[in-house]
């Protein structure tokens, strides 16, 4: 590629100018789409005390990210769009001039931004995993293909013994009928009730494969891992009904693992709990299921998985 004649240089620099325009157009389109999205598809409404912590970190990251995004794309476009006479020999400029000084400043600014966001995030991360208060509402959460099951302790605060051999669709936790603590445990499927303003401790595990218990409005997500119960907690602070999703691929029914979490006043929660306890059958029978059990959906998937295994 020998040195070009002047008109080829002109054409080359015109092409470079247009390429710079393309890069800037992509930058502007990205920014515009971001601002549109912020009005139409942003995060769901916050409903827990943990949510502002997460959203605060997201905001800090957006500030940093947007600054560096704009700066980098502009610094890519500028060399293309500048009209400079093609100079002769190249002598590297000292580091105190561009591009060296720009490079050093860019890395320093990134280090400072990184350190700031790291400090804020470490503080929030350990705050989220601090020990829960003593008066928290405890709920056992078990994920299975393809539903969420919840168990509330009785007034004695105890969860009864379980054993897999007792599991039926009427007794999804496999509660041992010989353990009196089970008699007062309330079991629900795909519907979790909590109290606004009262911390809730969730002990999360799974029965078959890894699921992920996801409460988008609470900004809470924890994998439900078989054999490894994990405890997380937060305090719901906005009444309403929100959705629970499964956030870890768990099989063909993964997309159907929807639940609801109802955040209610203490009075409404007490009334609901009373109605659940009233529905528990007499001792000696496996625990009954509260309203919300969708036998049809799980049965369909269990049948298809069972058929697949029967075919082997």
């Amino acid at each position, binding site marked *: *590629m020998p*040195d070009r004649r002047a008109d080829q240089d002109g054409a080359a620099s015109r092409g*470079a100018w247009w*390429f710079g325009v*393309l*890069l800037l157009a*992509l930058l502007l389109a990205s920014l515009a*789409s971001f601002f549109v*999205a912020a009005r*139409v598809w*942003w*995060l*769901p409404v916050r409903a827990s005390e943990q949510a502002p*912590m*997460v959203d605060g*970190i997201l905001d800090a*990251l957006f500030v940093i*990210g947007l600054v560096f*995004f704009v700066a*980098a*794309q502009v*610094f*890519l476009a500028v*060399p*293309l769009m*500048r009209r*400079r006479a*093609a100079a002769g*020999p*190249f002598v*590297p400029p000292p580091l105190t001039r561009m*591009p*060296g000084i*720009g*490079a050093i400043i*860019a890395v320093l600014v990134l280090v400072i931004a*990184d350190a700031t966001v*790291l400090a804020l*995030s*470490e503080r929030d*991360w350990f705050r*989220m995993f601090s020990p829960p208060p003593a008066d928290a509402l405890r709920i056992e959460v078990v994920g*299975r*293909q393809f539903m969420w099951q919840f168990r509330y302790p009785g007034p004695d605060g105890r969860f009864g013994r379980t054993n897999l051999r007792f599991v039926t669709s009427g007794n999804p936790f496999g509660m041992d009928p010989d353990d009196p603590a089970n008699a007062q445990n309330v079991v629900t499927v795909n519907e979790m009730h909590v109290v606004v303003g009262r911390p809730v401790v969730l002990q999360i595990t799974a029965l*078959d494969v890894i699921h992920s218990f996801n409460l*988008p409005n609470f900004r809470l*997500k924890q*994998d439900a*891992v078989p*054999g*490894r119960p994990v405890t997380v907690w937060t305090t719901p602070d906005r009444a309403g009904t929100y*959705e629970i*999703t499964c*956030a*870890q*691929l768990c*099989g*063909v029914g993964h*997309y159907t693992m929807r639940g609801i979490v109802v955040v209610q006043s203490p009075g409404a929660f007490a009334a609901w709990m009373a109605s659940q306890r009233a529905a528990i059958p007499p001792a000696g029978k496996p625990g009954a299921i509260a309203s919300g059990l969708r036998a049809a959906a799980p049965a369909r998937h269990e049948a298809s998985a069972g058929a*697949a295994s029967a075919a082997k």
Partner: protein
Amino acid sequence: MAVVVDGNFANRQSFLHRYIFSQDHKVIGVQYLVTALFMALVGGTLSMLMRVHLGWPQSGVLDPAQYLGAVTMHGTIMVLFFLTLLPSAFGNFLIPLMIGAPDMAFPFLNLLSYWTLVPAILSLLVSFYVPGGPAGGGWTAYPPLSAVPQAAPGSGLGQTLWLLAVALLCVSSLFGALNFITTILNLRSPGMSMGRLPLTIWALLFTAIIALLVFPVLLAAGLLLLLDRVAGTSFFEPAHLLVAGQILSHSGGDPLLFQHLFWFFGHPEVYILIVPPLGIVADVLATFTRTPVFGYRAFVLGLAAVTSLSFLVWAHHMYVSGLHPLLGGVFMTTTIAISVPFAVLLVCLIATLYQGQGRIRLDTPMLWAIGMLSVMVTGGLTGLFLGDAPSDLYLHDTYWVVGHFHFTMALAALAGALAGLYYWFPKMFGRRLDERLGKIHFLITLPAMYATFIPMHFLGLAGMSRRLYTASFYHFLSGTQPLNVFISLSAFVLGGAQVLFIANFFWSLAYGPRAEQNPWHANTLEWEAESPPPHGNWAVRPVVYRWPYDYNVPGADEDYVPQTVPLAGGPRPEHAGVAGGGGG
């Protein structure tokens, strides 16, 4: 002082031994390249099917099990059997040529590295057709879903064949990595000190070191999972598993062990995918700005830092997996720290562009190099949101992750590879790709890349999970379908535009104009060989006197001075490269 190449090195003459079971690094490199492009077509077709379904779920093109099979195989093929093959393709072709060697250190091992890959691919492709279909647990294949055949349709024979394919790929990659490292360290031409290596070679060296260290871990994870599936072991399954109405007899295992093993491989793997394109872009930028790469030493040190740190960040994929929170805090620190040396690399490249103002030549390789920088910055920045643990709490396993890794892998690594392909096509095949078609390919692809993958970040912010057959079960996601339609339409444009490249590639192979020896007037050694080079590469091994970036040197006749031009009596640059000349 000339070194005569060993004439006995020449391959046997039969077609089978010259072009099929070849030990010539250039032939093997092209075999890897063509295989990779074929797998990209398969993976790309799967993604088009997925996008038809996601844009128009009523179309019925995929049922839930088929959708998960498509997702799994798309990810597996694109990451492990397309992008992972590109460093092998470029490395095999370029390493001996760029260091002045006649071939790789172990030509037979090189042959084996390609021919262990072929059964791996066959195993993977066959798995589409077995009962139960292909693996459906995601390319991450987390047990127990992937370990228990009853847990999902694809967890039967399909998953076993998947594991066989991945195990063979590990073996193939290990052979290749051994070869790359030995060749670069031992077979450099006289005068080719480490400080005079082109950055493409430095990048391939670090990549091979990473590969050598982490592919054994993936192999171990795969073999342990295979044993759990067929031999009744319980490495990854705890007691009391109830699947499809059956209580399983496993006990004593931990699903998290697999995740640690997988991601100890998986994170360095993404650096295997991005480091060679970064090196390629460095060399392309130098050639087309006609100036040295800015900060050669900083770039090499940055590569070394990124390589070392890449082994210390893996659990940022596991922030919500159930780890002790302290581990989350530790890995957040290392993950945010690795952004600094990575930024040094990008800043050196952008600065190279900056210092080349007024000299920039926008041939197609250069378009792709600059495009790579654009998408790499975007992808790197979205990664910060995932490396940060509290923010990852919300974004984990959402479409934000999908947008992020497509920007960094599908866009940045691919753009760097395309820069390399357009750049070295003349050397590989002795013909030129059509420049105009190449520019049209680029000008359609770059905007389509942004249009397809930026909206995925909005889906993630809205809370849509990955690997969802449909979001329609969730009311809070009910407004997101327009985004899915927009993404699908953009993806069709993006996919369609690649036809231009494929057509250009094959047409030019047969009918393209013949390439001269050094069409880009570049300094590196491969341009001193013929286009394409013969077996053995050099009649006389080149001797190296300078680093590869003597462009526009004061006092020179031309604006480039190849590495083989002696210093004595030749142009004396003010920057003769990193100290360490002499001794090859």
